[in-house]
């Protein structure tokens, strides 16, 4: 088989690409290949599924007839093992080959499994990246009284919260001196740690698991400091690595992730990559890096799709951005994660300890380089917009700390430049009878005779 467009990976990036292609081109042939057997689902929803907040039918990211509507051949449960760049074919594990005109690699991430003595596929040990993982954990928790989560990152903490809600005694083991260290500052980590402590989750910092004991099942773990913890369940959530296997032994340039330019094209013409498997330009960071996030995967796939169809588009506004929540504490962080004692950045922050509301901005040359909102995240997107547009905020920077910061807090000129005629009426109407033009009200208003 040969298709005009082939996509490896059936998640945010792959779907973003299909939707973009079909906006521009209804006629070309499109195929999607995915190792997982499921209809496009959101892996970001697996904690909600485990929690019981959603049923399985709500985990699907697009309606059941998505592939038919999009006129896409879906090869689900089919693993790609390589790419023949000269014959322009994807090599499948089952021995098959699928030819392509243009290709998108959106194979996502794979869990990093740290070297731990004694780990040998015990059946109560899980990673937490796929729907199958969530289904496995769901089965394993019935009857479980205790669990250990290795890794205090977003995924580890989300799992810990859910398990705790299932009345399981949960211990999180984290190597750093605080949770979420790569994504938020120390003040925010503290708020999160307090939240977990209050809800009865134990967090052990600056420690890790060196050994597990148990044959069929892990019965206890031994930590670096020599202490031993018995457990019914072990979740490994120490990190996700770009899944770049299919690009092995090809001329496609791979650094930590598959390297792409702003058009999402790899070093091989006509082959694109996006999402967790790729390294893209972060406009705040000022260089390429892996940004393993749902929105960047989707938009990356979308931009790739446009370019694959010959419509030139660049992805210029990617940067780190996380919306997360733990128990009732909501957090949004974006851009660079800067410590509060930085000399390089100007730091503005305010913490309401009683209400646990925190706002923090890191400025460089008057522009927002990073921000964190915790406790109240209302209208966070305005801040992301200011960051993307490189607005010099010096003139009104103190207002950024207002909990209800809005467009009205911006100087008029900046405000209307940002909002533009999508918000403000740009056209001058003839005011016939003290009202608006007929076009706007279709003659429905009283002043307009039919």
């Amino acid at each position, binding site marked *: 088989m040969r298709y005009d467009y082939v996509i490896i990976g059936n998640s945010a990036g792959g779907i973003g690409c299909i939707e973009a292609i079909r906006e521009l081109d209804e006629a070309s042939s499109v195929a999607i290949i995915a190792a997982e057997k499921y209809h496009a689902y959101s892996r970001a*929803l697996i904690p909600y599924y485990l929690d019981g907040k959603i049923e399985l039918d709500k985990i699907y990211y697009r309606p059941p007839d998505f592939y038919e509507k999009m006129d896409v051949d879906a090869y689900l449960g089919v693993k790609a093992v390589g790419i023949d760049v000269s014959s322009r074919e994807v090599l499948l594990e089952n021995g098959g080959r699928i030819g392509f005109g243009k290709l998108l690699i959106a194979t996502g991430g794979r869990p990093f499994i740290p070297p731990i003595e004694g780990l040998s596929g015990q059946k109560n040990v899980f990673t937490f990246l796929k729907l199958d993982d969530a289904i496995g954990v769901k089965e394993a928790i019935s009857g479980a009284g205790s669990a250990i989560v290795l890794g205090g990152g977003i995924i580890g903490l989300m799992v810990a919260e859910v398990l705790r809600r299932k009345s399981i005694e949960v211990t999180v083991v984290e190597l750093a001196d605080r949770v979420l260290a790569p994504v938020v500052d120390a003040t925010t980590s503290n708020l999160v740690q307090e939240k977990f402590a209050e809800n009865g989750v134990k967090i052990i910092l600056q420690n890790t698991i060196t050994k597990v004991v148990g044959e069929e099942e892990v019965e206890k773990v031994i930590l670096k400091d020599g202490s031993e913890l018995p457990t019914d369940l072990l979740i490994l959530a120490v990190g996700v690595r770009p899944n770049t296997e299919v690009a092995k032994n090809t001329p496609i340039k791979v650094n930590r992730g598959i390297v792409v330019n702003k058009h999402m094209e790899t070093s091989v013409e006509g082959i694109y990559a996006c999402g967790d498997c790729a390294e893209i330009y972060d406009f705040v960071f000022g260089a390429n890096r892996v940004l393993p996030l749902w929105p960047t995967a989707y938009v990356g796939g979308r931009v790739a799709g446009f370019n694959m169809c010959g419509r030139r588009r660049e992805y210029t506004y990617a940067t780190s951005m996380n919306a997360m*929540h733990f128990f009732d504490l909501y957090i949004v962080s974006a851009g660079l994660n800067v410590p509060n004692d930085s000399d390089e950045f100007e730091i503005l922050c305010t913490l309401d300890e009683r209400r646990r509301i925190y706002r923090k901005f890191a400025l460089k040359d008057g522009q927002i380089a990073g921000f964190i909102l915790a406790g109240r995240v209302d209208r966070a997107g305005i801040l992301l917009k200011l960051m993307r547009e490189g607005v010099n905020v010096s003139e009104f920077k103190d207002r950024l700390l207002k909990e209800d910061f809005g467009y*009205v807090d911006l100087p008029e000129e900046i405000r209307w430049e940002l909002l533009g005629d999508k918000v403000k009426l740009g056209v001058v109407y003839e005011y016939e009878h003290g009202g*608006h033009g007929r076009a706007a*009200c279709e003659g429905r208003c009283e002043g307009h005779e039919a």
Partner: protein
Amino acid sequence: MRRIVVKPEVCMNCHLCEVWCVVAHSKSKDIIKAFLYEERKPLPRLIVEESRPESFALQCKHCDEPDCIFACISGALYKDEEGRVLHDESKCVACYSCIMACPYGAIKINPLTGKILKCDLCVDLGFPPCVEKCPNNALEYVEVEIGAEES
């Protein structure tokens, strides 16, 4: 496709747009019943930005390139055939990725459900009451070309 725009210079900060938004999304669609008797009175899906003497109403712009949809991890946000950005509440998991993404800050949190609230252009009513009922014609419902913007 049509979009609601504002004339800030004539907005009187009366908040009637909010009132009529509530009525439009209420069960009874009746202003008295909605405010006095409906147990779970809906919340306005727009924001009135105000800092005396300035004010203007701001609601979802139903963008051509909607960052909220791109960021939505559940598929709850979607575009309908006419280009409106709509929200399927039954799919929303209250992750607030859309709140992080919306450059207008036009998506609100419903404190009753924790889920989000956004302008739906009153799809069922045909014409948005916030525009229709604005006493000073500070809101307009204008025709826009789909696909005119680029991200």
